[in-house]
């Protein structure tokens, strides 16, 4: 944490130069780079917990019938697995870690617009996550509602729903404040000459994401408070026995939680858009189309929420409208994929680990996206609704998409973060294990889902056994892949990293590795004829 490269006149941000030293220096730092790393370490811990819980589920599902624990424990485990993975890992995910670390440098700023607010957001994140985790151990046992907290069950269950809901509420505030900070930063702190259409595409994706964070998150915040009010004060919002409407809950929940999928995936797309031109050494194809498609995904993605509710008793008109909108949102997503592939065409491809993970992302995201269309279609949705098919679909998006983009981003910006390289061979092996393990874990779920295996079921019919067992072995391969990746990144000290190890063109590759505290000794400017991806 405290190494410094001697040829840099300014000390790196990893060196403690302030009032405090060691851990306190990190915990009180308002430096966007340190905050980004703190998010990353916290997320790694939560991610590890989520993975362990996932494997605990897989072990129980290895054979039909009860093996190690009962159905109530199973309900609690899949609920907390979902809460941890969704609210503390993938929603803040790439935006909190790499948005904080890289975005201000990429736009030529010394920090975000509100550095103290940024640190406050981090603390809200930690507090919210702690409350959500504590809900497992307090009161009447872990919540058993699933991460969606569907009413009326979330109103009626005696388990510890209120703490979990309140944890998610606090995490939402962290998300809103980060979004607000990023919007202001990108409006007010871009380098001279960097117009919006000269801004790199990762910041563009964060800009679209930030608007969703600011506009959609308050809705789920209010909805979660309504659950607490209904449980404590018996106000009938959602529970029919109190005069409420459970479908209203589903509307309010998904008005946030579907855009939340885009909060997760847009920064992932942004990272991939940075990696592909760098490792193809070729100008990005369709810069404006990619930038505008980020905004289009954010906007249209806001209005597709009810495709989660086709079987909930909505009107036929609403189902038709939301199915149409769901198909529309596939268009800007596909634009991005076509642009990535076209950028690679005739490029000078360098198959280094970040690029390998980026390719993995495209493959897995395509499977996730295409299966999303079959779920968005009214007829096929009825057949596979609430089956393992849905589990496979959203894991292909959330893990295959966001997760692999996260790994790609770590391997891409790691030399900049720590000022040293890593072992490419080990990184490639981690990719092999992660990619193989991922597909072995989740692809069988598509098949048994179509055969009728319901999701969130503790027990199953014998014909689904092989699918579950394949998934278990896939999970094991995934865990091995994670361990190899962690060893690659954190166990051995690699060779010192040059300032620009990949031949990148954006601003972060023009400053030392690791960056100095205030990023730039001389503030960068963009020339009139300069573009962010000017590869020759």
């Amino acid at each position, binding site marked *: 944490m405290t190494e410094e490269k001697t040829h840099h006149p300014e000390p790196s941000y990893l060196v403690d130069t302030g009032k405090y030293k060691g851990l306190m220096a990190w915990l009180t730092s308002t430096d966007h780079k340190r905050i980004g790393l703190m998010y990353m370490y916290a997320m790694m811990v939560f991610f590890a917990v989520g993975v362990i819980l996932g494997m605990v589920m897989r072990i129980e599902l290895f054979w039909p019938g009860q093996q190690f624990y009962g159905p109530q424990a199973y309900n609690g485990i899949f609920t907390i697995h979902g809460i941890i993975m969704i609210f503390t890992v993938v929603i803040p995910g790439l935006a909190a870690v790499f948005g904080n670390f890289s975005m201000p440098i990429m736009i030529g700023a010394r920090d975000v617009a509100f550095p103290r607010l940024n640190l406050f957001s981090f603390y809200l994140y930690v507090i919210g996550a702690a409350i959500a985790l504590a809900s497992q151990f307090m009161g009447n046992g872990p919540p058993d509602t699933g991460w969606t907290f569907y009413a009326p069950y979330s109103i009626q269950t005696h388990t510890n729903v209120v703490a979990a809901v309140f944890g998610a509420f606090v995490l939402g505030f962290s998300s809103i404040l980060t979004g607000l900070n990023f919007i202001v930063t990108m409006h007010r702190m871009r380098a001279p000459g960097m117009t919006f259409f000269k801004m790199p595409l990762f910041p563009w994706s964060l800009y679209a994401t930030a608007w969703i964070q600011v*506009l959609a998150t308050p809705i789920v915040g209010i909805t979660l408070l309504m659950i607490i009010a209904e449980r404590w004060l018996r106000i009938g919002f959602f529970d029919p026995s109190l005069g409420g409407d459970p479908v209203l809950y589903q509307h309010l929940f998904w*008005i946030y939680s579907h855009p939340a999928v885009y909060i997760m995936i847009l920064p992932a797309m942004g990272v991939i858009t940075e990696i592909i031109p760098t490792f193809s050494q070729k100008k990005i194809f369709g810069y404006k189309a990619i930038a505008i498609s980020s905004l289009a995904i954010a906007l249209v993605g806001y209005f597709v929420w*009810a495709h989660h509710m086709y079987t909930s008793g909505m*009107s*036929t008109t609403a189902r038709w*409208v939301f199915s149409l909108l769901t198909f529309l949102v596939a268009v800007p997503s596909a634009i991005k994929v076509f642009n990535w592939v076209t950028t690679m065409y005739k490029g000078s491809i360098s198959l280094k680990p970040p690029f390998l993970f980026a390719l993995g992302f495209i493959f897995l995201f395509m499977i996730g996206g295409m299966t999303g269309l079959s779920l968005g279609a009214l007829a096929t949705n009825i057949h596979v609704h609430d089956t393992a098919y849905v589990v496979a679909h959203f894991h292909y998006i959330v893990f295959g998409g966001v997760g692999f983009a996260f790994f790609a981003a770590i391997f891409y910006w790691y030399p900049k973060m720590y000022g040293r390289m890593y072992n490419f061979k080990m990184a490639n092996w981690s990719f092999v294990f992660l990619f193989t393990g991922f597909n072995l874990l989740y692809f069988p779920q598509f098949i048994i889902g179509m055969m009728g295996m319901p999701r969130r079921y503790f027990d199953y019919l014998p014909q689904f056994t092989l699918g579950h067992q394949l998934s278990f072995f896939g999970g094991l391969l995934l865990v091995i892949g994670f361990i190899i990746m962690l060893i690659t990144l954190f166990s051995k000290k690699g060779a010192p990293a040059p300032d620009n190890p990949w031949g990148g063109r954006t601003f972060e590759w023009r400053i030392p590795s690791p960056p100095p505290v205030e990023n730039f000794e001389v503030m960068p400017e963009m020339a009139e004829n300069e573009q962010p991806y000017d590869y020759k």
Partner: protein
Amino acid sequence: MHPETVHITPYRTLAWVLITLLGLTFITITATWIDLSALTVAVALLIATVKAYIVLTYFMHLKFESSLFRVFVFMVLFIYVLVIAFTLSDYLFR
């Protein structure tokens, strides 16, 4: 990007805004005593909308800010209206 400009609203204006808001709050409460049947919610929402407009304009300085801020607020309201409209595509056609 461009230099900061600070606008100081006179106390007199702020006082008038406060009195107007209090007056509208009084009207909101009074309206609950009158049986407007189906229009009850509509009237309450109408008064609340006027109050929100005044707060945004004066207290939140929208009147004195650049048009960019107004565009942002309009965009938020537009999305809000669309959310309500799409939700009604369920409730009105059940």
